[in-house]
């Protein structure tokens, strides 16, 4: 069955070669054999400049201009007004006292989300990696059990759980069967928040488990053998050998999951839409709604909020660089 596919692919591969051979040869004659490197770089750099480098600069222009026009020349300069509007608060602990109360709610929600999601996810990933690192049969199968949800699209993940958590869903039916009280999970604020944390851990922990497992397997076996010879207890082996040697991987996992959690959006948006009210509204949804979903489109405000988020992400990345450098030196 695969034969026609592979033969078609190799035909295309050969055809693509022929297609570009002549123009590339001409370019090579013009540039010389060394400077043709720039020709190879060009497509990638073009896309990079257009969709990465240019937007980084433009973001600052958007953040300092107002109105709902997308073209920069139509947008009046407003200085720091967008930032001021976001940050103006009578009492920073009470979102209701802020000019942009939704923004602050999103900030607090994101803060809680990051702490809870990353904390529990890293803990469970570590536990799972330790379990999978044991000498168990079907290890490959169990590894893929945990990894499977990672591949599912966020929309699919959200719909799966929405179907389970709905008022007349299977979870409530099971609870009722055991005589426990039923809850309208996604309609009660605190429970909805619990479930966005739970579902995002469910969807992503396999990825971090995989990285931690690779880290565990990189620890040489003779270290454990030596400890066993000395009669070290299991706990001692874990706390004095496994954990210190796993630390570099743990740092990578921690920072990577922090960076992801700050930008969480997809599953949560489909699962709860940020609701009930704004109980599960996170910062990226605020940016999306301010800039794109709601009218008028406040591009400036959204860009300012993105820059504030970028500052947090930048700090986290620096943390990662420092931590990895430290672990590489030590």
């Amino acid at each position, binding site marked *: 069955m695969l034969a026609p596919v592979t033969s078609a692919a190799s035909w295309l591969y050969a055809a*693509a070669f022929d297609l*570009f051979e002549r123009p*590339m*040869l001409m370019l090579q004659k013009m540039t010389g054999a*060394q*400077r043709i*490197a720039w020709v*190879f*770089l060009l*497509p*990638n*750099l073009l*896309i990079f400049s257009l969709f*990465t*480098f240019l937007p*980084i*600069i*433009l*973001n600052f222009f*958007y953040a300092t201009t107002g109105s709902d026009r997308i*073209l920069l020349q139509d947008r009046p300069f407003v200085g720091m007004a967008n930032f001021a509007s976001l940050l103006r608060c009578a009492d920073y602990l009470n979102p209701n006292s802020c000019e942009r109360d939704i923004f602050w709610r999103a900030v607090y929600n994101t803060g809680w989300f990051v702490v809870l999601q990353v904390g529990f996810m890293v803990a469970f990933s570590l*536990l799972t990696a330790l379990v999978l690192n044991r*000498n*168990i*049969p079907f290890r*490959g199968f*169990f590894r*893929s*059990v*945990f990894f*499977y*949800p990672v*591949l*599912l*699209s*966020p*929309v*699919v993940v959200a*719909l*799966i759980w929405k*179907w*389970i958590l709905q008022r*007349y*869903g*299977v979870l409530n*039916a099971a609870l009722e069967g055991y005589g426990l009280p039923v809850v309208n999970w996604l309609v009660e604020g605190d429970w909805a928040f619990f479930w966005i944390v739970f579902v995002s851990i*469910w969807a992503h922990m396999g990825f971090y488990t995989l990285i931690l497992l690779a880290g565990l397997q990189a620890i040489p076996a003779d270290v454990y053998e030596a400890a066993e010879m000395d009669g070290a207890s299991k706990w001692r082996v874990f706390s004095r050998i496994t954990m210190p040697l796993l630390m570099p991987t743990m740092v990578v996992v921690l920072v*990577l999951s922090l960076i992801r959690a700050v*930008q969480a*959006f*997809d599953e949560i948006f*489909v699962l709860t839409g940020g609701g009930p009210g704004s109980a599960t509204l996170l910062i990226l949804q605020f940016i*999306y709604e301010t*800039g*794109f979903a709601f009218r008028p489109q406040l*591009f400036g405000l959204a*860009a300012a909020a*993105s820059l504030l988020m*970028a500052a947090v992400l*930048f700090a986290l990345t620096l943390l990662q660089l420092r931590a990895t450098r430290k672990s590489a030196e030590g």
Partner: protein
Amino acid sequence: MFSFLTRTRGRGRFDLTDWLTWIYLFAAIFLMFGPVAWVALSSFKTEAALQEYPPRLLPLAPVTTTVEGHEEPLQLYRVTGGEHEGRVLAQIRRIGLMAQMVDPENPDERLQVSINDRQPVREFALATENYSRLFQRFNFMLYFWNSVFITVVATIITVLFNSMAAFALSKYRFRGRTVVFILIIATLMIPPTINLIPIYMVVSQLGLVNSPWGVIWPAVATPTGVFLLRQYMLTIPDDLLDAARMDHASEWRVYWKIVLPLSAPALAVLVILSVMWRWNEFLWPLIVLNRQEEFTLQLALNSFQGELQTAWSSLLAMTMLTLLPITIVFAFLQKYVTQGIAQTGVK
């Protein structure tokens, strides 16, 4: 027979930690596969069966039959108590606590049965119409095609552009090489989510809003791909390339006929990653594609769950069809997917 389960770290006895390990692993199977399996089972239930509460595990549909003298098909019940106990009757209507029923064999006689004394007769029936309806009414093929188009085209361009850049950065010595490399790697620190508005402006100025190309172009120059491929190409010996150049091979030929085939393992990792990214992408298509006929599968799913709050039968079938391709790919390429991701540390 269960000796394979009791294999332990060479100590030969099944202690507490082994028990905990297996409890944990079986709980994990239930928790990780259970929800997907539940959606799979539910997707074969009729809308009526989906409304049932508490829900049944298997798609068991109530059985109906046509009875002489009644236009509509009537639902069959097994009588479990009272004077007609043991008979199978069709229900005509329900009046308060009593049901007016009829024996399909003897349609003239009306029988009264208490509603507590009857159980619906069920049979195992897969509501495949949930799936066929997607193709007839919901334009499923259009969304599927949109998703496939974006995934395939974006992956080809990503692999081509990234490998060309990686080739330049690993096999040539030219001024500015380090600067370009650092510049590309630095963008790993700048996720596209913080530049949504300016990227949207660029896309709209290029006239790509509501076009699949507006989704494809912004993310084809992945720093991850360039980095991954460059590191791999560095391990290809330069002598090999020089030998080809001696034979008057053009640089393009060196790249296409020597470096690319030798980089196949790294290219495969990038293909897997790119397919995953593109098939599952949500936020950026949500911003760029506003017209229904341009929707990807993910967008279509999202908009259906908003509109058809109650039509779960179609929604569940569509969810299944969306997760199926990735599941099949994973089932066959499981080893490569997990290895590739463990190597690169990205997903």
